């Protein structure tokens, strides 16, 4: 870049930055309490918008004038809706499980009065003498927030918040570097693609930079489709500018002119916030023609995918962007040299791109100091399933699964026993307890039969049937298969048929050999990554939980008491209370009646195994049980 350009970049940004900082200072140190409401999708699903309305109404009623800010997801999704109040004289306090009534109390008792309502506190954001802070939580020892640092602490709809917290400084620094220097920095940081495959990011950038053909494109892959994964959504909803900044830097480094953010339309809030961020960045000339007065021009458009899992595969994603059906194309040539409209195209995951600013700002060495030998930086996981603290987690690569599930996630809900953890979504696998001490990185997870994937982590407990879990994921891939190639279209369908039979107790032992044989062929023979990894959930459960498969086939028994066809509900006569009729009333098909002694009995012929009687039976009796195989039910006298 020309020297004259560089001279204009810094002052141009200084103005923007000082305006943003003064706005941020006004908010933080304006002498008024600041109320922040977590209003990402996780918060909204838990009722954050109602809480927000209650807060605003109460403030109006009390004639209080204090800023109310909508922020993104802090990662404590289990405790949503979350409200953070920063009142002068107090540390910023975070309240969890807030409902409109609690919200009103917080206003009247804490904002108006001086009672910080300790009973609703989740934790304080800073260390203090009044309430325990998040840094005192056991999980704090294992977490390291890098790309999630801003999430839940700034208003994602205010670009000034992002800039005041160090945003776009990396872009300014990058614009003063040579593109090759940036690529070298990314290369030596050891950053690997966070979309799942873990391809070295710097190398991809270099290939794309050296590729002939213009214009070049950058695509941000936000087509997050794994069941149970929500990392990319949370980042786009909570800190969209970090993704934009990464894209602009990438654009400068590889010499691209245009970028696309590919987000699925099922993420309306992410779409809205990313669009808003694009408009704001454009207005500040952080995007568009001659960015900050330099000779680098770059534009980004947002494209809404219509929600096909296979579109996460890069060639299918490109086809979808071009208006074609989202069906993978043969590689090579790879998109880096021959992508969108046949031009060199860089496709990076949301998390990969939002890591870039830290690498540029803090240096490759700093980034590489976190993590393991071959997997650098942090890993972001969406912790879901039967774990106590569901939510977003960011830990250094190399942290063990046990630390993530038991220390950060606080273990299994309801004191149940851990059975397995499903990592990597439909392409990943289920790992048993014996694998819990595996360090989380790209290679060790693949070696164990799972994969890093994009970061979905579903925790399973003793009530989850591994055959059913495998069947569930296979049903997902079968439904989401584009149908182009024989192995994925018909092979996964055959596997699904067999698993269906096994969960219904109709499996044969020789089916298991057929399953593993076919699974190997699908892995080796499929056209794209979706097919090649589709058998993983089956293969991993078959290798770690073969006893469960055999119990289904040989004994017609589902050890986890999950497979409906292999269980029966039974009321233990000794435990059933004569005067209670709870189960009779809830039974949807009138299958329960009382006998002469007023003991309730289930008519197995009529029972549809919905389980409402088990839920209805008062815990002091606990008379309804599930039995497997159904022949365990004693013959009625």
């Amino acid at each position, binding site marked *: 870049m020309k020297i004259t350009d560089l001279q204009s970049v810094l002052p141009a940004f200084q103005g923007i930055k000082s305006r943003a900082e003064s706005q941020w200072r006004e908010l933080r140190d304006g002498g008024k309490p600041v109320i922040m409401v977590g209003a990402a999708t996780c918060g909204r699903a838990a009722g954050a918008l109602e809480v927000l309305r209650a807060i605003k109404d109460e403030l109006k009623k009390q004639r209080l004038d204090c800023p109310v800010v909508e922020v993104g997801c802090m990662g404590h999704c289990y405790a949503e809706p979350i409200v953070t109040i920063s009142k002068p004289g107090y540390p910023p306090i975070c309240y969890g499980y807030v409902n409109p009534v609690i919200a009103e109390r917080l206003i009247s008792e804490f904002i108006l009065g001086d009672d910080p309502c300790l009973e609703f506190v989740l934790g304080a954001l800073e260390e203090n003498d009044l309430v325990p802070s998040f840094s005192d939580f056991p999980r704090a020892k294992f977490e390291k927030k890098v790309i999630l640092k801003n999430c839940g602490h700034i208003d994602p709809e205010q670009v000034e918040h992002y800039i005041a917290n160090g945003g776009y400084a990396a872009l300014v620094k990058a614009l003063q570097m040579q593109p090759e220097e940036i690529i070298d920095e990314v290369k030596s940081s050891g950053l690997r693609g966070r979309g799942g495959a873990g391809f070295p990011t710097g190398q991809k950038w270099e290939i794309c930079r050296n590729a002939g053909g213009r214009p070049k494109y950058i695509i941000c892959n936000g087509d997050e489709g794994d069941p149970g994964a929500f990392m990319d959504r949370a980042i786009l909803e909570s800190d969209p500018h970090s993704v934009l900044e990464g894209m602009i830097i990438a654009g400068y480094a590889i010499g691209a002119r245009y970028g696309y953010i590919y987000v699925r339309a099922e993420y309306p809030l992410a779409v809205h916030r990313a669009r808003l961020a694009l408009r704001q960045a454009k207005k500040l000339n952080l995007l568009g023609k001659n960015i900050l007065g330099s000779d680098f021009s770059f534009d980004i458009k947002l494209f809404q995918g219509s929600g096909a899992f296979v579109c996460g595969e890069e060639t299918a994603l490109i086809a979808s962007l071009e208006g074609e059906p989202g069906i993978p194309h043969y590689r090579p040539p790879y998109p880096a040299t021959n992508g969108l409209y046949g031009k060199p195209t860089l496709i990076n995951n949301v998390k990969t791109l939002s890591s870039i600013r830290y690498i540029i700002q803090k240096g490759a060495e700093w980034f590489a100091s976190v993590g393991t030998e071959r997997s650098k930086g942090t890993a972001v996981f969406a912790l879901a399933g039967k774990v106590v603290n569901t939510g977003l987690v960011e830990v250094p690569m190399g942290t063990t699964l046990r630390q993530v599930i038991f220390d950060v996630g606080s273990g299994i809900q309801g004191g149940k026993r851990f059975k397995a953890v499903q990592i990597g979504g439909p392409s990943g696998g289920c790992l048993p307890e014996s694998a819990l001490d595996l360090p989380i990185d790209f290679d060790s997870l693949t070696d164990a039969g799972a994969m890093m994937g994009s970061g979905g982590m579903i925790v399973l407990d003793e009530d989850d049937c591994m055959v059913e879990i495998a069947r569930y994921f296979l049903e997902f891939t079968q439904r989401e298969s584009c149908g182009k*190639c024989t192995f994925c279209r018909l092979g996964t369908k055959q596997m699904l048929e067999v698993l269906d039979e096994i969960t219904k107790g109709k499996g044969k032992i020789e089916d298991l050999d057929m399953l593993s044989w076919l699974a190997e062929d699908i892995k080796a023979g499929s056209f794209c990554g979706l097919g090649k990894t589709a058998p993983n959930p089956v293969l991993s459960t078959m290798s770690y939980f073969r006893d469960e498969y055999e119990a289904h086939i040989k004994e017609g028994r589902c050890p986890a008491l999950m497979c409906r066809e292999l269980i029966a509900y039974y009321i233990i006569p000794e435990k059933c209370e004569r005067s209670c009729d709870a189960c009779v009333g809830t039974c949807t098909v009138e299958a329960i009646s009382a006998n002469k002694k007023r003991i309730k009995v289930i008519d197995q012929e009529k029972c549809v195994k919905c389980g409402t009687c088990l839920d209805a039976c008062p815990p002091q009796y606990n008379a309804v049980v599930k039995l497997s195989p159904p022949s365990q039910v004693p013959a009625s006298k």
Partner: protein
Amino acid sequence: MKTVSLTIDGKRVKAHEGEKVLWAALDNGIYVPNLCTLRDNSEPSAACRLCFVEVEGKKQPVPACTETIEQGMVVNTKGPGALRLARTALELLLASHPVDCAHCPSSGSCELQKIAAHLGVKLKTRRFRKLLRELLVDSSSPVFIYDPNKCVLCGRCVWVCRERLGIGVLGFAHRGFERVVTTFGDGPIAESKCRDCGECVVACPTGALTFKDKQGTVKSAHKERVETETTQ
């Protein structure tokens, strides 16, 4: 154009630089099973997964239709790994194909029969479940009958109609097991822009597309194409 020499099944052959292994083999009289390729389609569709071969130095079998030839390359079309994948792929196709050859006008010219014979696979496979779909047969065209149940989704007809002829009546719809070749809006062929040229019927390797009334024409059209391809 430069020529490259390579060895396929122990036979030294020559082919143009940049050629795919599949065509190098077929041109030299070495048959490799295939359903989804067409010579004039420059981008291999690689969908049928039948043309697996083993290449010396590669750990895994590769599809011959996507593998570019190299000087001194050693290809084995009959390696156990390649045959295993090809057989599984064929059996999967047959398990979802109404094998009713006795009543099928394409019997004798059907490429599934030919490939099954080549690979030593029985047409009525035992290994997999029979998974058929009950789709409506479209006999609205004055020229041909389209039976989607017999379709193996190779995509030849789609490509010929759309790319070679520029008409674009046929296309793919739906995903996964439900994927099907159909017209825009899934309407009858007679109500589409079909020009009744019958090129799709000629392209079809199975009995999914067959000429009406002229059973003889069907067979000869198929035979002619199969013969030209193998003898080329």
